[in-house]
């Protein structure tokens, strides 16, 4: 029972990283209509940037976290303006942005590999909180607390932003049709830039927190996140970021439980198997509504 509870805590914390990433991924997918496979590299670069600031420049971890998140956001805006904006202007259809995002993925991943080197590193001890918290016989790491809190705050804020503010209304209008949104006085391009920044920044946050929880900074952080995040978005349905968040947490719990009670080798296979199963049985996601598609 103790073990189950402890693993549940671990699973929720792991899942919170996936969920954070999934929220950003879902934003780009739902509001910009782009399946951005480069999204994982934004997370990687957020983590790498913050590590570089802490390790090479001795910056305070929290400041480095904020700067890393900002850097990831800027990368997102750059990718959007350099690669996706020309395609949007040409009205290039659905495949072109996917292929462009594969190009961005290759570029950012290769650069990350060259920047970080083959050896995995971790944040220097002393710069980050590591003292475990003991309560009710459970051991909770500070990184886990931070991750869960970050998820709750981000999901609440983004959800309120999208549903209760003028900016949110603009985002929803642009996501339906940029041209009509422009007619009613929305600056579509500026709105899309803001969404790109927000989504990539959230990915960066997931990257930093994932690196903090694993105590491991490497160029491959984003690759794992990308698939788990995508699985969460598909299973949750991408219309509502809360669905993606809940499913992200669920995937984390499932992973921890399956490696504890079934087999650690097949951990990923189980996650992706469920992903395929949901894709086949309920393509619109567990919580999603059917999308209206132009014939």
């Amino acid at each position, binding site marked *: 029972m103790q073990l189950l509870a402890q693993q549940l805590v671990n699973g929720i914390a792991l899942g919170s990283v996936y969920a954070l990433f999934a929220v950003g991924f879902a934003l780009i997918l739902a509001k910009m209509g782009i399946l951005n496979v480069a999204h994982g590299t934004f997370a990687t670069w957020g983590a790498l940037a913050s590590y570089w600031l802490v390790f090479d420049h001795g910056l305070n971890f929290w400041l480095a976290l904020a700067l890393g998140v900002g850097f990831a956001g800027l990368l997102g805006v750059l990718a959007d303006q350099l690669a996706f904006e020309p395609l949007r202007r040409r009205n290039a259809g659905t495949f072109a942005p996917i*292929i462009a995002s594969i*190009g961005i993925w290759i570029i950012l991943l290769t650069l990350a590999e060259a920047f970080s080197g083959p050896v995995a590193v971790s944040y220097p001890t002393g710069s980050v909180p590591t003292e475990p918290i003991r309560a009710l016989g459970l051991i909770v790491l500070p990184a886990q607390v931070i991750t869960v809190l970050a998820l709750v705050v981000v999901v609440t804020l983004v959800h309120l932003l999208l549903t209760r503010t003028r900016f949110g209304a603009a985002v929803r209008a642009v996501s339906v049709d940029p041209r009509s949104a422009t007619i009613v006085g929305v600056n579509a391009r500026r709105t899309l830039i803001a969404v790109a920044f927000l989504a990539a920044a959230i990915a960066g946050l997931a990257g930093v927190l994932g690196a903090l929880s694993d105590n491991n900074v490497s160029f491959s952080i984003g690759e794992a996140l990308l*698939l788990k995040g995508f699985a969460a978005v598909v299973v949750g349905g991408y219309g509502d970021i809360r669905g993606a968040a809940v499913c992200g947490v669920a995937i984390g719990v499932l992973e921890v439980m399956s490696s504890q009670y079934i087999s650690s080798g097949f951990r990923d296979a189980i996650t992706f198997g469920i992903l395929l199963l949901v894709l086949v049985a309920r393509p619109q996601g567990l919580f999603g509504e059917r999308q209206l598609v132009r014939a």
Partner: protein
Amino acid sequence: MSTTAWLTTLQFAGVNALFALAIYASLWTGVLSLAPVFFGAVSAFTFGYLAGAIGLSPALGLLLGVALGAALGAATAGLIIRLDSHYLAMATIAMVLIGRVLVLNLTEYTGGASGTLVPGDLGTWVWLIGTLVVAGYVMSRLAGSRFGLAADAVREDPAVAQTLAISPRQIQFVGFILSGALGGAAGVFQSSFLQYIGPDTFYTHLGFVTLAAVVLGGAFHWAGPIVGAIAFTILPELLREPMGEYDRVVTGVALVLIIIYMPRGLVDVRRLRLLRDRTRRRPGDRREDVTPAGAPAGAEASS
């Protein structure tokens, strides 16, 4: 580079061309799929296992690879063909990732992390070029067939195709079988040339290189993937010297630039026709209603 190195590079260009044709076969029917990499992995590991366990002859191995790939293609299509384009693309990427997990865990058959050895009997020019010629011939014959025309229609607009009594699902199903057969053959060749296959042999990198090859070469004519694969395999080799570990960055940049500025790729039959029409017109010709020569190649492309 030495001559031997060049020949090896060209051999892998040929294998990549087979993979690229496999991706093209489904893209032709409007489906973006990386599944051929997974089909190739299954064929290659089955071939490696059977060659080791019961001494399967290489020629039979190739046939088996093609059949296995086609069967897997049909099974995959049956399951996921009805998904929307985004989901379908990602489902095939998920297949590639699951493939790696399977290879790592089915140690008994695949050798797990340390991989497995494969006989290299098929790794010769004769087999490779022979297979490429057969594949090219089949694709070129299909291009003008009822299937080819239907596939073009489905890619351009499934709704319009449906009003022409074409069933998009059926066409895409056939495309997936074709894609599976080509992917299976490519997997057998890849393993024969390498003579060693591991969990990373058939992984995302292979998928992206071949997808890039299709995009560069042109996804609107069967010769495009072959030209693209040759260009995209040789380019990094040439760049390795001056660029070092950054050679893959060029692949990425090229992919983005091509999709933005040359969305129809190098082998663009429509542009060639426009050029030919322009050169045929003699100076004294006074027809002025011809398409302006400077019309951008991708102006009406909707890939």
